[in-house]
């Protein structure tokens, strides 16, 4: 296989004159044309190099001329954004998402839009209305989800990096299953303006990259307060690459005992424990901790998410944009039939679940109860972070499963996110980095590192140090 390009490789190639930005874009475009058919990672590709780059060719920005892939729930002006749904099949973005605007300013180019579970609802990309994405490591297996197209595109070198969105693990879990690096920044770090909303109190955009350094570089480019997302925080933004080289001797690493209970595959457990011992070798102090309410995180998540979904997806009504039923005779039927025809099974399930949880007489029992348990989960993490600097464990309970294996049982697919949802509920930053392949499945395994609120620097530093230690072996 040809060498897979990192951001630094592109930078080097451009500076040394091995290729121009146009040439490297074309190289990737051609590769996508050849290889996308078997993977279905891209839903749409852009023919020509985007000319809207606001930079000069001699610019020193590390991201200049870097070809990227964007999850198809983020808006790029003038291009189709489907969110993986039939209901938005022909929807043309009216403006650039803030992350797109920022990447443009850095000189990044866009190869195309990547596949996802419909409205980012899923853990295998099988919920996409445009067919599942395949895992580049084994085409009979899922790439994870919902940012499965982005993860597969990075793993197969059909782009240099990609953006995904993570509501309950949708960047980290596919990164884990495809053997790439996936970062979910702290909630409020990256603007959601121009991201098609799923669950607004949890959604966060993050990079999928080939290594940790690239992850830091992309985060540098996309983060910061945005007046168009009132939940972004007014904080100065550090250079996330600056401290990657600092050693982690004496750093306190928490290992929650609850992460190693029932449901965790043996081959995953093995690798995670191996990786923890590597941290120990690097001089970190390993401390067992407890997150007593961990077992309630997933149930909490599946009240809050459907509730927010039922509200956010009310806008798809067949009136202003998106699919509109041709058969509807009355206004009410326009709503009923457009939504019936346009949404797939999972959005329907979640909209209805959320509608139920928020309906008269059930609000206290479900939504309010969930937000209270959410507070308890947050307190568990706050308490833990008084004793430790980062918390580590598996990203997902097992490696990539077979296509079709779980699709008939929604609850079993929900379980995929058991280790990642607590991080969204608490708003904390989390990353998944590859830590080897399973001894039984042979598939990639992800190691998750969770940090204090707005402490991506430590999360990235630990990741980088581990990555270096693993590549030395």
């Amino acid at each position: 296989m040809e060498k897979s390009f990192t951001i630094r490789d592109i930078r080097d190639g451009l500076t040394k004159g091995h290729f121009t930005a146009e040439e490297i874009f074309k190289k990737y475009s051609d590769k996508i044309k050849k290889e996308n058919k078997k993977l279905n990672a891209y839903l749409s590709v852009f023919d020509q190099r985007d000319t809207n780059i606001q930079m000069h060719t001699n610019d020193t920005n590390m991201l200049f001329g870097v070809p990227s892939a964007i999850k198809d729930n983020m808006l790029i002006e003038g291009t189709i954004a489907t969110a993986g749904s039939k209901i938005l099949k022909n929807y043309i973005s009216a403006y650039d998402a803030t992350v797109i605007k920022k990447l443009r300013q850095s000189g990044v180019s866009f190869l195309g839009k990547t596949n996802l579970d419909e409205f980012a609802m899923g853990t295998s990309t099988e919920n996409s209305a445009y067919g599942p994405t395949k895992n580049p490591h084994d085409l009979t297996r899922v790439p994870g989800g919902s940012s499965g197209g982005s993860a597969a595109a990075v793993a197969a070198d059909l782009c240099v990096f990609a953006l995904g969105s993570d509501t309950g693990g949708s960047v980290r879990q596919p990164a884990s299953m495809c053997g790439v690096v996936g970062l979910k920044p702290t909630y409020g770090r990256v603007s959601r303006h121009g991201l098609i909303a799923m669950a607004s109190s949890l959604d966060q955009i993050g990079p999928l990259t080939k290594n940790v350094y690239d992850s830091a570089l992309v985060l540098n480019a996309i983060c910061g307060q945005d007046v168009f997302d009132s939940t972004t925080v007014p904080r100065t933004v550090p250079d996330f690459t600056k401290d990657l080289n600092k050693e982690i001797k004496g750093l306190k690493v928490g290992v929650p005992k609850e992460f190693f209970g029932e449901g965790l595959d043996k081959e995953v457990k093995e690798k995670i424990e191996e990786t923890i011992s590597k941290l120990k070798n690097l001089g970190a102090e390993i401390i067992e901790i407890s997150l007593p309410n961990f077992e309630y995180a997933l149930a909490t998540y599946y009240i809050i998410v459907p509730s927010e979904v039922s509200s956010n997806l009310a806008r798809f009504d067949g009136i202003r944009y998106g699919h509109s039923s041709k058969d509807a005779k009355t206004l009410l039927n326009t709503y009923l039939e457009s939504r019936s025809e346009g949404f797939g099974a999972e959005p329907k399930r979640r909209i209805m679940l959320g509608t139920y949880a928020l309906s008269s007489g059930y609000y206290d029992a479900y939504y309010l109860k969930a937000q209270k348990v959410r507070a308890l989960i947050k307190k568990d993490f706050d308490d833990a972070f008084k004793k430790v600097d980062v918390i580590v464990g598996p990203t997902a309970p097992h490696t990539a499963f077979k296509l079709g294996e779980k699709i008939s049982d929604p609850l079993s697919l929900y379980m995929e996110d058991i280790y990642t949802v607590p991080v969204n509920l608490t708003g904390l930053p989390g990353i998944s980095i590859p830590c080897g392949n399973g001894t039984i499945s042979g598939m990639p395994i992800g190691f998750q590192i969770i940090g204090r609120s707005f402490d991506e620097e430590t999360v990235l530093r630990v990741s980088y140090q581990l990555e270096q230690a693993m590549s030395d072996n």
Partner: protein
Amino acid sequence: MLTDKEVRHIAELARIKISAKEEKSLKKDLSSILEYINKLNEVDTTGVEPLYQTTGLVGSFRDDEPRGEFKMDENLNEKLIGQAPHSQNRFIKVKSVLSHK
């Protein structure tokens, strides 16, 4: 277990028309998810304040200024109104809201 009537009522509230087949599978799926969710009742939340958001930001303001790139012209009209399934000039057409008696 949700009843058939409850499933139909939720679908109506959610403004989604469901087929008899969908009704059956939704009843099964929603009931099993709700059963799982009900494990939250094991948690004692007496005196716990709900956590609706994690940033702690309260009242984020910005200047109320028009966005330069959103100047109302034919181009923007096409971008926004042009995507409506039924439109006329700068207006979106909807079916009648009030019916004749």
